């Protein structure tokens, strides 16, 4: 079996995997980071989104071997160094942007990717960027609010709380 090595959330990890092993299975089963979820088998739901070399990637659509040598960030790597919630995470809690929590890791990773690319998205831009992430609980209302709020916070703006 081929050996793969990558840096996940700042930690070097490696393992022997079958060629067919998906990145999401490597993350969940080989290195035991279960925050990244699997919600479908057609690359549609986005529960498995992680960052690979700074880009958001559906980890069910990438082989572990293809991520060899990459810098990977998962939901477990999104909190601040002191363990407090990062800006996007905190905005999700403040605006009740999650209910059952299953799609949440993918939502947070996609949102962080959007805000890396566009510091001041419109509501419509947020909704379009979330096309590949399905949530069944929230109706997206509070997710969109959370992301707009996180964007404002990252720009240094204050927006009124609810």
């Amino acid at each position, binding site marked *: 079996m081929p050996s793969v090595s990558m840096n996940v959330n700042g930690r070097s990890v490696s393992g022997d995997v*079958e060629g*067919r092993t998906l990145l999401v299975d490597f993350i*969940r*089963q080989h290195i035991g*980071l*279960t*925050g*990244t*979820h*699997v*919600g*479908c*088998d*057609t690359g*549609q*739901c986005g*529960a498995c989104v992680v960052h690979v070399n700074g880009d958001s990637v559906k980890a069910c659509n990438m082989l572990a071997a293809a991520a060899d040598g990459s810098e990977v960030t*998962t*939901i*477990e790597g*999104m*909190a601040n160094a002191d363990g407090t*919630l990062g800006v996007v*995470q905190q905005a*999700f*809690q*403040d605006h*009740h942007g*999650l*209910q*059952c*929590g*299953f*799609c*949440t*890791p993918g939502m*947070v990773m996609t949102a962080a990717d959007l805000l890396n690319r566009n510091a001041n998205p419109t*509501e*419509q831009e*947020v*909704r*379009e960027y*979330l*096309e590949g*992430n*399905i*949530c*069944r*609980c*929230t*109706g*997206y*209302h*509070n*997710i*969109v609010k959370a992301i707009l709020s996180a964007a404002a916070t990252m720009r240094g703006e204050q927006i009124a709380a*609810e």
Partner: protein
Amino acid sequence: MPKDSGIGASSKRREDVRFLTGTGNYTDDINIAGQHYMYVLRSQVAHGTINSIDTSAAASMPGVHGILTGDDFAEVGGLPCGWQIHSRDGEPMKEPAHPVLARGKVRHVGDPIAAVIATSLAEARDAAEAIDVDISELPAVVDMKAAVSGSAASVHEEAPDNLCYDWGFVEENREAVDEAIKSAHHVTTLELVNNRLVANPMEPRVAIGDFNRASGESTLYTTSQNPHVIRLLMGAFVLGIPEHKLRVVAPDVGGGFGTKIFHYAEEALCTFAAKKYNLPVKWTSDRSEAFITDAHGRDHVTKIELALDENGMFQAIRTDTLANMGAYLSTFAPSVPTWLHGTLMAGNYKTPLVYCNVKAVFTNTVAVDAYRGAGRPEATFQLERVIDKAAREMGIDPVEIRRRNFIGADEFPYQTPVAVAYDTGDYHGTMDKLIEIADFAGFAARKAESASRGKLRGLGVNAYIEACGIAPSNLVGQLGARAGLFESATVRVNAAGGIVVMTGSHSHGQGHETTFSQVIAEMFGMPEDMVEIVHGDTARTPMGMGTYGSRSLAVGGSAMVRAAEKIIAKAKRIASHLMEASVDDVEFKDGVFSVAGTDKNVDFGSVALAAYVPHNYPLESIEPGLEETAFYDPSNFTYPAGAYACEVEVDPDTGVVEVCSFHAADDFGNVVNPMIVEGQVHGGLAQGIGQALREAAIYDPETGQLLSGSYMDYAMPRADDLPMFDVDHSSQTPCTHNPLGVKGCGEAGAIGSPPSVVNAVIDALQSGGHDVAHIDMPLTPNRVWHAIQSAS
């Protein structure tokens, strides 16, 4: 000034921190040392006779530990049905066996045939492909009307005509209803489909069986909304494991929406295999498997007639419904089109006469059972659609016709002609609120603006009522339930004063850990973070009936309050001893016991400590310790109600419908956490709008193959399909019969929204000059465009 803690505060959810940091504990996150994996071989045909199953080649493949087939379950029960309906002639429903693994026949695509247990999932799957199953295909029974036509194949020998039951309600009113319709000034008739849906919680189902040879205890980890119910059903009826040797754990569960209420074969398979092979066995559904094994929802075909007098007053309602049961009776399936449906047909109105006939039909499709709202969306949709059609036919404004027939705020309690008695409500009040927040006055201007862009704008409105807080046990027992529907809670005060609540309610997104803590914090005058809520484990909580039917706070919360009241009563007696006062003079407020008219007081923490360190304590009359359990059985359902409005724009050239705005005015009685309540409504609205415009489980009528069996085909609502919602719950008529005055909010959005969306589209088309009376859901661009074309 909004409160910042306790009842009425929008406390941030404590659950969120673990979900936002990837440290939740969902069932698939659990891995047990030595764990093996199960893969289930399923039928690829909808209907067929099994001639043989040859597992010999598969059994010798690498990693395979064992293979189970139907014969392994010959001596155990099938999956039980929890509700028995009787037909109009008094006969009990047809209740064919639901085997754990198919025996003799397969009856739907996805019906489990064999289970392979191997050291890895890949090996289990590879081996399953080597199982040789010889099936002679039979004609698939798919369409409900064809199923009961007399010329279709039989899904079950016990029901040769594919009829499960033929239910009438209220049977004594049948002739009077017929007469009222025959002699009415006006009768509006509507035939419609309530489209079949797939619940699609984002977490697929998972089961892990584990067996402890030393203690003889089986443990099942499962994605369930009600672990105690699974323990009861699987232990008593399927595997014959007594409850004291069976533990069921439902840890963090990623959404349920009804489909995780039911007991599924894979739970029994993993539990059985773990004991048989003495090793942990894990099964994780993939999404494709979920589509063909999770119980679906809705799937009714209905004809409804509404009789009105010359003033638009409702005289009688008559409905004829075919309700799909699928291939087997799922846990609560028979109750959904009957008691959860017929009892809501009076709606918010003073209609004196109602008669519903429901024929439940077996087909070669996956089972159909409760999905968010369960029977009540079907009732609301047909009623609020036929009212809209009647208003149009009689030239009465759709709000006005509803107002004329609303039960007045001063008429409660109100006995309906369909058994249930509403305790409280203010339907004019919620309609007034809706008209205010939805700016009906500005609609004409918005419509003109849409028209300037070539779009047809429509406004749809409806009322809704639901029966929640399920349910009074003695009543549902008379109606055929084979279980009680109480809830229980244990409140444990620790010696140092913190409180742990063990509740039978289960949280899978609802945020109970936060809201239940708010209630206890309010009652005991303590910070919320001094309260811990434990749920989802039969070994840690008392009996529980679980979470569905918007019942958690109304029933489970009430049990918790009753247990807390017992704590306070006992603590008062302890405090009276400590303060050397009569217990009748002791008051408890903001966490402090005091003696009226004196400056004597003792705080709750000191009383708790005295209960566990009883050195100065009346041991002769009061037991030490401070822990109480309560079971709460509601005396009535609760009746949340409201009024909804949807504005749409229809593109007449393409048939595309855009939801421009959605306003909801709900009456949930008292509200514990407004932020969470609003979130629940948002989610319900998304599912209701999804049903109205996008979602449909479509079976091929010839082959019985599920055509919309993945997220590539089944149109889940996405972020850019929905607007921001405007929801209001300031109209509050508290429930009169539970201690919190709460009514439940989990299903309202899904129940109330489909008719507003369809009413809005019909309004847009009609006012745009297209004489379209009805379009069946989902209102896809294709269907809307065709309706426009055939009307012009």
